[in-house]
């Protein structure tokens, strides 16, 4: 509104000159220049009976770089006397605005100016009033706004701002703005404004607010101690109600407050003692320096001691993490934050977490009881980096279904490189040790690697945790290197399981897109010398005695389900008792479907509980959901394939005839067989 006042005053001045020059005056100027104001296409005319009709047209007015175009002011009851000028029934119009009724009263004797602008809102008392008084040496002006419509104000904003800012559609403004000055110009501003029911939006709707109530109390005064145009300012903003969407963040008012002091001159805006109170999140202290006129941030300090992580994450951070692996987090606990930004660059960031917990919405991981102090320091000017050490303690965590005990992470931070020399994670009754962990941020995202080992974890505890068939034995392994290149986890070396008195080696392990929507796993499994007695006992398959070697090569899991592999199962070399029970024979037969049991010596089957065999062999190549089966490779049959080759007394031979079976059908049959004694089959 200060600007509006300034527009009217020069217009008045020109009008006054021309009015004294004669009864019917027209004054035109192509360009009017002054340090404060430039105007183009100026036309002033005073016409009508007793020079009572004033018309002022300005094609363009620029004040301090802000431009208004097509300004038209007319006054139908224009009166001029020796020491006063009066205008009633005036109309002010800008290019895009509806006309505003304006009247003014100027008295050179009393040294007063009174301008009234009525806005056509339904209310009785809606409008703007500017009262100014001047004498020597000071002057004072007061702008009073009563039910000023925000939408009307927007029409009178400079053109650049109209295109830049979302346009208010609704809302009323009440309050006062007090200006005081001396011969040198404006010396102080004091504003108390309350906005009610404000709604605004840009064309796309990506920056919009509704039903907003805001109270602003601001003051600024010229800094007498400084040369030039330097100002000291203070502002308090209260936001009790309303909602704002400012892509990508949505905020509903819950009593958020902001206050700040500072300094302003031609070159800089300085922010001091800024305090942002976000209800339900916490208090943030701010200070900084902005370079004008480019409005670039030069220095900034942000500190917050006690932020509520749950609301900080859900309201502020989450919208920025859409489509990342950590978008669906639930966080709790307290966080502290310190950020220092100097000369346009990050210098220091310190994050504190107190009793924090983070849980993945998909149940993939969880960290609980996290206390951490994580300092980060930017590399120095010559690229020299000051490494910092973070201390992180996690009381318990969960990876998938596997619980992990208390962990202390000695994290070394070196610019954008992270290092953990050694880390021990208690996993069930064993330990996972990570050595030489290093991570860095590259063009394709974060990459990391480590080596390590797993000291024996009991299979009983592991299968309990995973909720699968209970097994005995241990799981252990040496991991020469695990690396992640931004998309794939590659495990060099092999994990070794010791179960069923034999070994299982898991090698060539690769995990594609591990935290994505559809992770894939590639691996080779080699099993040696598994005790069939233990194995068949565990899975209630029907007793078998002997030892087998099994291989699952080229295993591909997509979304944790097998899509491709070449599996084979053969009797281990060596000398050991080889017996197979009647139940196991029947189960093996039924696995292959109806055709598989054809060669079983049925008459003998009914008589004996146990049979001898000399060799077992079975293979399955999974392709496109179909398992292509085969038997003992060294014993090809003209029709079918040999699964169990008889030996000893009584001997039994099992031949399969079906070479293809639907994989999921096979899995269902296997589940029916192995679960029949433990729980009912639900299909």
């Amino acid at each position, binding site marked *: 509104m200060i600007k509006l006042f300034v527009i009217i005053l020069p217009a008045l001045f020109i009008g006054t000159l021309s009015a004294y020059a004669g009864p019917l005056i027209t004054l035109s100027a192509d360009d009017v220049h002054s340090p404060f104001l430039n105007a183009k296409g100026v036309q002033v005319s005073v016409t009508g009976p007793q020079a009572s009709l004033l018309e002022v047209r300005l094609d363009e007015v620029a004040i301090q770089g802000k431009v208004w175009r097509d300004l038209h002011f007319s006054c139908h009851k224009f009166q001029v006397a020796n020491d006063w000028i009066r205008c009633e029934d005036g109309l002010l119009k800008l290019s895009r605005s509806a006309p505003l009724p304006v009247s003014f009263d100027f008295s050179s004797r009393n040294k007063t100016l009174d301008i009234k602008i009525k806005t056509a809102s339904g209310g009785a008392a809606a409008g703007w009033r500017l009262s100014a008084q001047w004498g020597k040496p000071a002057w004072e002006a007061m702008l009073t706004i009563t039910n000023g419509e925000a939408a009307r104000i927007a029409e009178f904003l400079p053109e650049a701002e109209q295109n830049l800012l979302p346009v208010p559609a609704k809302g009323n403004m009440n309050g006062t703005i007090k200006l005081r000055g001396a011969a040198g110009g404006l010396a102080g501003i004091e504003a108390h404004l309350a906005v009610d029911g404000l709604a605004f*939006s840009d064309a*796309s*709707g*990506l920056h*919009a*607010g*509704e039903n907003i109530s805001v109270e602003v109390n601001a003051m600024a005064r010229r800094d007498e101690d400084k040369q030039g145009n330097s100002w000291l300012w203070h502002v308090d903003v209260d936001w009790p109600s309303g*909602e*704002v*969407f400012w*892509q*990508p*963040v*949505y905020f*509903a008012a819950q009593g958020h407050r902001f206050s700040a002091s500072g300094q302003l001159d031609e070159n800089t805006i300085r922010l001091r003692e800024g305090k942002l109170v976000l209800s339900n999140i916490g208090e943030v202290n701010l200070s900084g320096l902005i370079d004008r006129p480019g409005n670039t941030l030069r220095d900034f300090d942000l500190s917050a001691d006690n932020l509520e992580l749950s609301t900080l994450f859900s309201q502020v951070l989450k*919208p920025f993490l*859409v*489509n990342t692996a950590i*978008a669906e987090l639930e966080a709790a606990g307290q966080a502290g934050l310190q950020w220092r930004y100097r000369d346009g660059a990050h210098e220091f960031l310190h994050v504190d977490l107190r009793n924090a917990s983070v849980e993945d919405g998909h149940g993939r991981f969880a960290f609980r009881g996290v206390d951490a102090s994580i300092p980060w320091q930017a590399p120095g000017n010559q690229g020299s980096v000051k490494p910092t050490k973070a201390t992180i303690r996690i009381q318990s965590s969960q990876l998938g279904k596997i619980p992990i005990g208390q962990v202390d992470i000695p994290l070394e931070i070196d610019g954008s490189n992270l290092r953990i020399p050694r880390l021990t994670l208690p996993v069930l009754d064993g330990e996972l040790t990570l050595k030489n962990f290093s991570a860095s941020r590259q063009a394709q995202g974060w990459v990391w690697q480590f080596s390590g080992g797993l000291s024996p974890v009991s299979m009983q505890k592991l299968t309990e945790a995973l909720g699968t068939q209970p097994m005995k034995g241990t799981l252990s392994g040496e991991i020469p290197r695990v690396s992640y290149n931004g998309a794939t986890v590659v495990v060099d070396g092999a994990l070794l399981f010791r179960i069923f008195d034999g070994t299982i080696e898991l090698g060539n392990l690769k995990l594609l897109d591990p935290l994505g*929507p*559809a992770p*894939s796993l590639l691996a080779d499994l080699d099993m040696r010398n598994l005790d069939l007695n233990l194995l068949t006992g565990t899975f209630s398959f029907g007793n078998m005695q002997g030892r087998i070697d099994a291989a699952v090569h080229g295993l591909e899991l*997509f*979304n944790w*389900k097998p*899509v491709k592999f070449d599996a084979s199962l053969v009797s281990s070399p060596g000398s050991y008792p080889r017996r197979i029970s009647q139940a196991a024979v029947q189960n093996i037969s039924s696995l292959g479907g109806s055709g598989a049991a054809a060669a079983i010596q049925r008459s003998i089957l009914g008589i004996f509980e146990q049979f001898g065999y000399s060799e077992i062999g079975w293979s399955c190549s999974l392709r496109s959901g179909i398992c292509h089966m085969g038997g003992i490779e060294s014993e090809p049959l003209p029709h079918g394939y040999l699964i169990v080759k008889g030996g000893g007394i009584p001997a039994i031979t099992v031949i399969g005839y079906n070479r293809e079976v639907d994989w999921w059908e096979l899995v269902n049959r296997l589940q029916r067989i192995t679960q029949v004694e433990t729980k009912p089959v639900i299909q």
Partner: protein
Amino acid sequence: MRNPVYRFIFLMLLFSVSSPGYTQANIEIDTPAISSLRQSMQQRHSQLQPYYERGAVGLTRDGLVAMRDANALPLAARQPVNALIAAENQDRNALYREIARANSHPEWEADIRATFGQRWIDLARPGWWYQAANGSWVRK
């Protein structure tokens, strides 16, 4: 069918044969990745549908979806719809990439995207918005 574009028009017809959007799919190249993406897109489709109908979300000509007019949504819904759009586009990009990869022709991705982009628009229901070749939004 030597021309990959025609090949994929054919596939698209199979892919979403009976209704707008992506239901009743019966695609020939049915890798686990593609079916997983299809499933996730099908589930999301019912969430996106009201926003297509309101004109808040439209179909772009490069086979993705975009916020066309956020003003058609309450303020509180704009951020979740943004997230929905981002997730849908992630799946769509992955789908085009995966179809090309599954056919051992990664270089087809652009053709596949263009074909799908046009096909989504053809299958859109009346009243939905799509982006014309010149980038402007058109109501079907």
